[in-house]
């Protein structure tokens, strides 16, 4: 039953442009949904650290941005529009960056880990800003070519949306498998009691580093899709703002779940992109929502839903 439902939702998601063509000719909703899915990939990857392994990173945009730049620069310098070239470049660059930063960052825990990841991400931001020859500096890289794959051209808005949707579903599937594997269980053990994990014989430093690299690589995929979707990469993609967007998505949606970060990303993007056209001071709404969740609903939307479901059943 659950598998059937998931398949149906997946099919509806991928075919969204087709069944909305009648009332959505401007492709506004498709664009919004596309960007929600990109943010959701970033949030899902961050939640592997925050929610599963208990590693609160505030520098996750470094890997998202690295992936975005890598995909854009690969397309530009290699003159290749091949999707796999861009994605492989994005994953490789993001993973290597995560490995280098992780070697230092995973030695710290809790608030110190958070501050270290923030500091490293700011360094990456500074490099992106300074290395104008490669990254376009403050101008960013405009006109990123959209990719092709096996003869399919993802240039049109519908095709690109579908690319994002399919990759998103792939990331969800991988995240699900990871979380339900013995590896995912070990990460949860790390979150709950690192000392005990060490005493059981787990090399917790290496385990944390591996999680950091996997999450970084996954964020890189999101970055590449962002570069293709917006046809633009800038220092915003490696900035603290993007890291916070992802972090807030995870917290609002509910940490340690698959659906939570996705819902959280949708809520954050809705408030940022859709709400400002209908109400004044929409920018403050996100802050307000965040405060409410931190104060009153630490378990996020998923936690609230679980609680009310439990209450109804009782």
């Amino acid at each position, binding site marked *: 039953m659950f598998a059937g439902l998931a398949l149906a939702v997946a099919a509806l998601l991928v075919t969204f442009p087709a069944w909305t063509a009648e009332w959505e000719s401007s492709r506004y909703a498709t664009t919004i949904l596309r960007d929600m899915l990109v943010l959701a990939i970033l949030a899902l990857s961050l939640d592997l650290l925050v929610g599963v392994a208990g590693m609160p990173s505030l520098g996750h945009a470094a890997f998202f941005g690295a992936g975005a730049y890598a995909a854009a620069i690969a397309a530009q310098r290699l003159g290749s529009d091949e999707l796999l070239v861009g994605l492989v470049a994005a994953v490789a660059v993001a993973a290597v960056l995560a490995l280098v930063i992780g070697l230092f960052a995973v030695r710290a825990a809790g608030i110190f880990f958070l501050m270290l990841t923030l500091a490293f991400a700011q360094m990456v931001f500074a490099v992106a800003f300074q290395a104008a020859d490669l990254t376009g500096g403050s101008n960013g890289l405009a006109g990123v070519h959209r990719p092709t794959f096996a003869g399919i051209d993802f240039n049109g808005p519908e095709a690109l949306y579908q690319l994002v949707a399919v990759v998103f579903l792939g990331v969800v599937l991988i995240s699900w498998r990871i979380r339900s594997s013995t*590896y995912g269980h070990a990460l949860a053990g790390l979150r709950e009691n690192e000392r005990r994990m060490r005493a059981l014989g787990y090399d917790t430093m290496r385990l944390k580093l591996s999680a950091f690299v996997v999450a970084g690589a996954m964020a890189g995929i999101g970055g590449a899709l962002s570069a293709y979707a917006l046809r633009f990469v800038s220092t915003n993609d490696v900035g603290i703002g993007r890291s916070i967007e992802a972090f807030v998505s995870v917290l609002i949606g509910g940490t340690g779940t698959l659906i939570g970060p996705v819902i959280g990303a949708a809520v954050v993007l809705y408030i940022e992109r859709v709400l400002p056209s209908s109400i004044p001071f929409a920018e403050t709404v996100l802050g307000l929502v965040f405060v409410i969740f931190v104060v009153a609903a630490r378990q996020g939307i998923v936690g609230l839903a679980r609680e009310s479901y439990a209450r109804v059943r009782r």
Partner: protein
Amino acid sequence: MIEARELRRAFGGIVALDGVTLSIAAGERRAIIGPNGAGKTTLFNILTGELEPTSGSVRLGGEDVTSRRPHELARRGLARMYQRNELFDPLPARENVALALRAEAGPYRPFTAPARTERAAADAMLERVGLADRAGAQARALSHGERRQLELALALACAPRVLLLDEPTAGMSPAETARITQLIAALDRSLTIVIVEHDMDVVFRLADRVTVLHEGRVIADGTPAEIRGDTQVNEVYLGKVVA
């Protein structure tokens, strides 16, 4: 099996261990007793690699393991029951044990779901420590005594060669104490056990030999009968506890 030589450890100006030497044979059951602050837990933390000694060395199974990290010692067959429980609180008791059982195979199988046989193995371990009917309960929902039993299950699930027990009966009711003492007494005789304990009935029931620590030094070492008759030990420790 496990040996400490001239272990010293200072915290700032305070010397917690001041040249402790002891040698525990394979299959031996050794109790370490002494008043609070004698350095028992510091000694355990050094033996398990959680703390580095200021000087001195530790050997495990003939190999110098001084300043090896805790997981490396665990992989060499050292398991520990903490004085204050170190459990995975929100996880079910069964999953707590499963994490211990899985440690040997290592965690790097990101697409492999836990084996089906694992559940039975975890349940068997829980049954061994008397928690058969609590397998599905969160660790945090267990009573204090049950949490001690689960703590022991985690240590045993590592299939250790050397088992360090830090006050296994701390905070337990007499009935719970009797049960866990019985459980430890019934463990395989090839297992080397080092036990820190304040309850002298438990010590004299379990230990082959007793080492007495006082202010970071070994002041006596002998069979339970010898220790009972030692006047100095009675003065600094036993006299106060077992009047």
